[in-house]
């Protein structure tokens, strides 16, 4: 009999304790609300005091971007990608020469002379796993995730959604016809 009433008492008291907690949350909603009104309010990028050279530490995971003027076509990013979402095709050209016809600059912003013409640099963002592995080996730091240290150059885009699946394949290289490539490569015309 005693246990019977103890059980009832325990039930009532613990249930009311729970109700008191939810009540407290309900009346303090103005202080406690954590909702972000998404399309109007965006998730703020965390305030990051890195304290060292930001160029080396690309602390963001977002969509990839390639500065094609700096790409030397070394294929390091393609090789390191664990899901094979990067595809690069290159052709041998004269070292360090600008070829304006196909949008090729001979010298990168770091001063490296390019020996390869990149005719194709595709990244399939539907397959990208945002592991950030491709940005580290890049010798020219031309592939990076947007919104990080280079956010002045490229606004952060949360959604980067598309209506067509094929639009998620980002083609960074300038479109070139075979003749253009043939002219540009000249006698070095073998495909690499």
């Amino acid at each position, binding site marked *: 009999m005693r246990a019977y009433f103890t059980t009832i008492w325990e039930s009532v008291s613990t249930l009311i304790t729970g109700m008191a907690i939810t009540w407290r949350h309900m009346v303090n909603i103005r202080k406690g609300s954590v909702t972000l009104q998404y399309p109007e309010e965006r998730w703020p990028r965390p305030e990051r005091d890195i304290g060292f050279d930001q160029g080396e530490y690309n602390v963001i995971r977002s969509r990839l971007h390639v500065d094609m003027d700096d790409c030397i076509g070394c294929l390091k990013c393609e090789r390191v990608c664990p899901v*094979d979402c990067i*595809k690069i095709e290159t052709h041998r050209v004269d070292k360090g020469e600008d070829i304006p016809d196909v949008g090729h600059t001979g010298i990168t912003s770091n001063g490296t002379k390019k020996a390869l013409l990149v005719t194709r640099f*595709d990244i*399939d963002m539907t397959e990208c796993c945002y592991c950030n592995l491709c940005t580290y080996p890049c010798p020219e730091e031309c592939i990076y995730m947007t919104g990080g240290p280079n956010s002045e150059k490229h606004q952060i885009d949360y959604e980067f959604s598309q209506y067509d699946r094929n639009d998620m394949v980002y083609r960074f290289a300038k479109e070139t016809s075979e003749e253009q490539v043939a002219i540009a490569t000249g006698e070095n015309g073998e495909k690499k």
Partner: protein
Amino acid sequence: MTSDQDTFIADAVEKALAGDMDAINSIEDRSIRGKAKAALVKAKRAAKAEQKSESSEESQGGGTPEEKVVQSSLSALLSSVYPDEIIEILNEGKVVQLKPQKWNEIATFFRDHADALLDQLECLTGVDLGTEEPLQVRYNLHSMKHRHKIEILINADRVKPEIPTVETIWRMADWFEREVYDMYGIVFTDHRDLRRLLCPEDWEGWPLRKDYEEQESYHGIVVPKVKEGWE
């Protein structure tokens, strides 16, 4: 590369070996810094190899003295009771390769013997040693009471792989053996419920074998080998 640079790098590496990593980190030029780091790694590895050859006798065997005793005692226990079943004792007695025939009996002995009490099967791994080599199953055993462990290797023939089950001895082996069967096709004899675990029932082939070939299609779904436009 100039000899000037070389000496600069050598300097920095020496400093770094002495404990001052900033000497390398403060190098402005990326390429020189990279070379310096590479040189440092080389130097450290050489130093380590030297150290090892000097102190190989003390350092090998690992762990505290008591641990060593227990390790060797487990394999010693095994070789005293089942001398004929042991093919090879490897790695200071931490790893023992057994014949498959009496494995079930040995497993029971291991679990129940007061000095062994290996009541926990940590892991059960199937291995394909190569297209010409046999298949292998590795058992990592551990005792919750004595806190010692041993690894058992058992080979299985490639054509007709059969190993006695330990599913009733360590219940965990139930699903792990099913997984090994699923992936390697090793039949665990007397297993009560030997079905594929992860792959569908009608999957063809043993996926984790080195000579496995992917199916062309599965239920009419063509398995894409290369991504379209990505050749």
